[in-house]
């Protein structure tokens, strides 16, 4: 397992074998993959839907802070993305 450190300039993208989708019946975003599903909580869903391979971690953090009218989310975003990379939901583009 390669542990790419996540920094403000990293550009996270959803791994191609996952599909992120809003499910009204579950009131949640889910990650769909062959014969399986991961139900995400609200913050995980908000982060992952911004992981398009274009936006940097800093961009994503700013967007979330703006959307939720708060500050100081950087550590939470990095921590979540580290887990997501570890679980191979997300890959990080340099």
């Amino acid at each position, binding site marked *: 397992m390669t542990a790419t450190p996540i920094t403000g300039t990293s550009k996270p993208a959803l791994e191609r*074998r996952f*599909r992120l*989708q809003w*499910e*009204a*019946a*579950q009131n949640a975003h*889910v990650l*769909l*993959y*062959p*014969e*399986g*599903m*991961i*139900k*995400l*909580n*609200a*913050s*995980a869903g*908000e*982060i992952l839907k911004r992981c398009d391979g274009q936006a940097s971690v800093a961009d994503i953090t700013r967007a*979330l802070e703006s959307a*939720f009218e*708060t500050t100081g*989310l950087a*550590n*939470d975003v990095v*921590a*979540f993305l580290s*887990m997501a990379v570890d679980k*191979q939901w997300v890959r990080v583009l340099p």
Partner: protein
Amino acid sequence: MGQGAAVNGVSEMNAHAAVDALPGAMTAPTPGPPLWLLLELTYRCPLHCVFCYNPTDFARSGPELGTEDWLRVLREARALGAVQLGLSGGEPLARDDLEIIVAEAHRLGFYINLITSGVGLDQPRIAALKEAGLDHIQLSFQDSSRQMNDFLSSTRTFDLKSRVAALIKQYDYPMVLNVVLHRYNIDHVEEILNMADQFGAEYVELANTQYYGWAWQNREQLMPTRQQIERAEAVTQRFRERVGRPMKIYFVVPDYFERRPKPCMNGLGSIFLTVTPDGTALPCHAARMLPGFDFPNVRTMPVATIWRESSAFTHFRGDGWMKEPCRSCPEKTRDFGGCRCQAYLMTGDAANADPVCDLSPHHHLVTEAVARAERHAGQAAAAAAQVAPVEKPLVFRSPANSARLNP
């Protein structure tokens, strides 16, 4: 928005392995959505596998649903919150309206898994399915060697499957290779995994046979010995450590060798809904064997009513049906008492604890079955050395054998 919440708020359901039970599924007064919809589009199949879970009386099944019925089932189930869709059979490619069904499922937002032997999947067909929005193809293999693959499925398909595996990669699908393990191929696990690696499979399911339908018919002949299972698990583990790319390998241990039952279907009526070729709705693909139910049919009852109100789905939902030792067992929220079909097949009462559990008063039925299989394996080895006859031959899945077994 805290880090802990982001990490802990994730739950996973997964058909390959028993992962977390969905919270609240156990005693919820109103059920959650049927998250997983399995459509068995047809019982027609070019293969004749000895371990098929289809009912042995499939030849007496009523006429298949038409295209419009399947599309209506998709719309009704999606409205209830179904999201993972399995298209299976029999061989789903035997339906020439498969592309129409896939296109509608895609439009509705399903994640669509095609579960296939690969027979009938040529280049124009896979292109059409891709265009229609198919998300993934699970290809079954009987073994890594041509001889064993063709023998166990009673047909000549190995080369064809190899070509299909190449097509799956060519069309940029993630590939799940499914190999059902049993006494005759479990010693080939290393070759099977090497083959999967060559094909570029992303997921490999080494699924030990579950004994329902045709597999139940052939149980004594198919069950591996404990020694075979331990060796296969060790080989799998060594392979995991040396494989050089992302490849998830699920080794599903046969539950007869366990001391606790599998959390079958997360409890009946919890997340799974199966529709058989003739439109019968079942809480799991083997449940038609359970006595005392008038299983509803999607031709005459809306899917929502079936899911919420029919006794086929409400009876085993939650834990009110349980007897001892399950009723007072702290583990009932983890395994839901195991498999109702297995309890019925082995003990004659579907409300009993799954006899795989060593707390069940019927657990001896499982250990005796394993012992019988070990003796049979010894006999088969002797027969191979031509010193003794085999008592029971394998019964291949076919319309003729179906009619013979169910006169």
